[in-house]
């Protein structure tokens, strides 16, 4: 160590000081890493919840006190999809709920529009249709956690409303994203359990494809 110090010219760098320095640097790095990890974890969770991604723009109510409670008019979806360059607009109603006693999020979607933005790999079963109001697709991680099988009937109990909905599991999907922890249903179901009228959704996602200037 002494020779190394002499070679490097750090004559004042003794073993004890190196040890202290190492501990402080290690702990500082750990502090930085932990702070960054928790904040970025929150950030990732937030963006996953909103479904933001590359080339995907989300319209949601920024004034709402929590991301769960915001509502935007559903007609905006149609207006946005009519804009030049917008490939698709997907209105979605998010509802926290409990299924088999486990808390999770249910996302009411318009399957055709949604799958254009988020292509899903069906592990089992098929993609739900909008008019199949009692059907659901379960993310692979949620299915494993809740032990949900294809064809099973599950009861979703509302958190924001005093409503419950029986759902028939039509498919299990994988998306390699936080969506795998959610349950996808037709848009109406999300609106019922969210307590929103048919004229409102939690958010609208769209793929503007170089049409940001149109907004």
């Amino acid at each position, binding site marked *: 160590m002494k020779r190394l110090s002499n070679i490097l010219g750090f004559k004042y760098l003794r073993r004890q000081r190196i040890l202290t320095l190492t501990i402080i640097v290690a702990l500082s790095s750990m502090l930085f890493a932990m*702070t960054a990890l928790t904040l970025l974890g929150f950030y990732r969770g*937030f963006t996953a919840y909103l479904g933001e991604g590359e080339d995907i723009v989300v319209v949601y109510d920024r004034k709402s006190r*929590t991301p769960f409670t915001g509502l935007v008019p559903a007609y905006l979806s149609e207006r946005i999809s009519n804009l030049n360059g917008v490939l698709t607009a997907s209105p979605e109603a998010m509802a926290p709920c409990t299924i088999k006693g486990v808390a999770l999020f249910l996302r009411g979607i318009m399957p055709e529009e949604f799958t254009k933005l988020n292509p899903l790999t069906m592990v089992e079963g098929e993609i739900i249709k909008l008019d199949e109001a009692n059907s659901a697709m379960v993310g692979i991680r949620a299915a494993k956690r809740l032990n949900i099988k294809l064809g099973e*009937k599950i009861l979703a*109990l509302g*958190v924001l409303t005093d409503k419950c909905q029986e759902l028939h599991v039509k498919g299990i999907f994988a998306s390699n994203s936080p969506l795998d922890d959610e349950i996808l249903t037709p848009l109406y179901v999300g609106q019922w359990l969210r307590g929103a009228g048919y004229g409102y959704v939690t958010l609208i996602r769209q793929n503007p494809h170089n049409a940001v200037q149109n907004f």
Partner: protein
Amino acid sequence: MLVPMILCLKMFLRRSGAICSIITLALLIAILVSLNTVVNHLALQVETLGSLIAPTGSFVILGKSSTALTDSRIDADLASKLTNLNYFEYFSSQLVLIANLTNGNAGSTVKIRGLVDVGDYLKSKGAYVNGTTVKNSTEANVGEILARAMSITIGDKVVLAIGNKQAEINIVGVHRSQTACDAELLIQIETARALTGDNNSISLIEFTIKKDVDVRQALKQIVQLLPENVKLVQVQQLKEFAQQVNMQMVTFLDVWSIAVYAVVAAASYVIATRLITESSYELTMLKALGAKKHLKFILIITYTITVALLGAILGTSLGTAGTQAAATLLRWVKPSLDITPFLEPHQALKILMLTVIASTIGCIYPALKTTRTKFMEQTL
């Protein structure tokens, strides 16, 4: 005794090693505080969510082994037993079935709900009805979504079939309630029973408790009347949802807290040992001047606690300020992401106290060991 002790403590704290020890402990505590502040923000979100809605007293009684409404079967007599109680604002026995519906050439599997009073049920859901509500066993109200999907209009005659049993039903109204029954066909319970051929069972009992009734007391009495093969479920699961989310955060914090306090205890052991080794001359000198064993013990403990306390105060400030700075930076990068990390005063106090306790535990052994070391064994 107090004056020499303060002087000795001052002497120990002036050592360069003391500052390193304080910084080390401060960084450890800052990790914990940083996690606490972010988790507090998440907990506040859940709390806000809870405060936005007042949970209602809607409950359903289902078959114990059932996972869905259509699978559930309970004894029809249970409804008549419960109606004797004077707690209910709304009470409804329901038979929920899956049936094949044929409207002209179109056919599909639909959910039908047999009710004692369809009008009362629709009123409880705040539904708008186009047409009239069901008055007899040959009539049905159809939900708006189902009507649209199957092109059903008022005046249509549809055929319901379960197995080999069929019933022809007139559609007398289309309803919109913004609930699950918008995708269902509502009929009288007698019609539903005729389709199943089972007059002794129902699927569920839905009820709400009167506002002036003590809900806990009412539920206690209701549960006493329930047989073992049924379960009572609160429809709105706000409390359970919030509890589960908070529990996940508490578990996450607990794991980290235990790890950090264990490291604080270990660090305090090292700090105390280092003090004993590096200040052996001073400690031996104290003994030579007549200091008792317990003075040395108290001195080492006090030194470690002082270092831990200073480290905890510095760490709490560093963790809170650092996380807030990082959150502000993140907000600049992503304006839509509004994270406000904060630390409650009682949490700060808890962290200080637990740090002191962990530190005391860590330094007791070296302090005790010093008191047992004989004068001749002291290293100079």
